[in-house]
């Protein structure tokens, strides 16, 4: 994550999806966290067994998922904290990352098919549409980031034994 999220100690946090994370390092005013594996699928851990060494391993997957927040709450390494992201953040992120490129890809393909009626032209147009859509995605993601919609926020320290399913 390129910029630290604004920390907040709002304990009510009514419109947040909450999760638990471990503090893995503290660098000055910034704390690095790794989300705790939750849920029944165990996707984080399962992905560790489906790749070669280094790529797709549990360690590399957790490394990808490391994120930082401003350490205004004086967190220390090993602490468990409750973090939150705004409601609908995942849906907005999914639309930005996947729906926009897909829409431009299909639009370009439909136009090329209507104009040229050739498979090769349609294929080329779809690839070009995908590239344009990814450009739009990048702009949209930048906007979401500026609005703070992609940044997890510190809510509170987790109580002993607290999980995101059973607060």
């Amino acid at each position, binding site marked *: *994550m*390129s910029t630290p999220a604004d920390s907040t100690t709002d304990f009510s946090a009514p419109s947040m*999806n909450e999760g638990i994370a471990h503090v893995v390092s503290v660098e000055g005013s910034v704390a690095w966290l790794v989300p705790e594996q939750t*849920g*029944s*699928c165990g*996707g*984080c851990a*399962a*992905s560790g067994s*489906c*790749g070669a060494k280094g790529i*797709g391993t549990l360690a590399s*997957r957790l490394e*990808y*998922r490391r*994120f930082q927040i401003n350490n205004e709450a004086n967190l220390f390494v090993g602490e468990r904290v409750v973090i939150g*992201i705004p*409601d*609908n*953040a*995942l*849906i907005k*992120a*999914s*639309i*930005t*990352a*996947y*729906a926009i*490129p*897909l829409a431009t*890809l*299909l639009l370009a*393909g*439909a136009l090329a*098919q209507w104009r040229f009626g050739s*498979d090769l032209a*349609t*294929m080329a147009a*779809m690839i070009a549409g*995908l590239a344009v859509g*990814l450009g739009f*995605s*990048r702009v949209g*993601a*930048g906007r*979401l*980031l500026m609005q703070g919609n*992609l*940044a997890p926020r510190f809510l509170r320290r987790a109580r002993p034994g607290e999980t995101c399913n059973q607060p």
Partner: protein
Amino acid sequence: MKEYVLLMVSAALVNNVILARFLGLCSFMGVTTRIDAATGMGMATTFVITVSSMADWAVQTYLLEPFSLGYLRTVTFILVIAAAVQFTEMTVKKVSPPLFQMLGIYLPLITTNCAVLGVALLLVEGRMSFISSTLFAFASSIGYSLVMVMFAGLRERLALVDVPRLFAGPPIGFIVASLLALAFMGFSGMSTS
């Protein structure tokens, strides 16, 4: 135009990937505990199915068919799907690292999703043109996402109701899934006349 619309309605509703063809059941039960998670998984899968189907069509048409390598189809398609997932992962990471951190967890799950391979094999069997196969793949994955989100909504409501202990958790989930499949069977009676 009408044939494209019929193709898409058929792929999304009548021959729904999950409820009619019974593909992708592992993610159907595993990632439908929350609506936003199901939406994220559905959109990621839609993207990967559409892109990998385009690549699969090209490989089938320009490589496997001309050189009579049809017996390599399944293994080639698996390779193409894995490459498409890796491409998506790298692209999302490059376009926006925060987006990747939020959505990247779903991508490895898609590699082993049989719905992706199933759709690719179906469109090859259908001997469709490029645009038809792309629309078929897109509509199939929209049907997949629709069912995922519907089922996630139902499970969120089920979590709030008083279910007998014997049926609590996955058992009531399977019962609801079967009722949903019965409801989708109603689409098979649709007529174009």
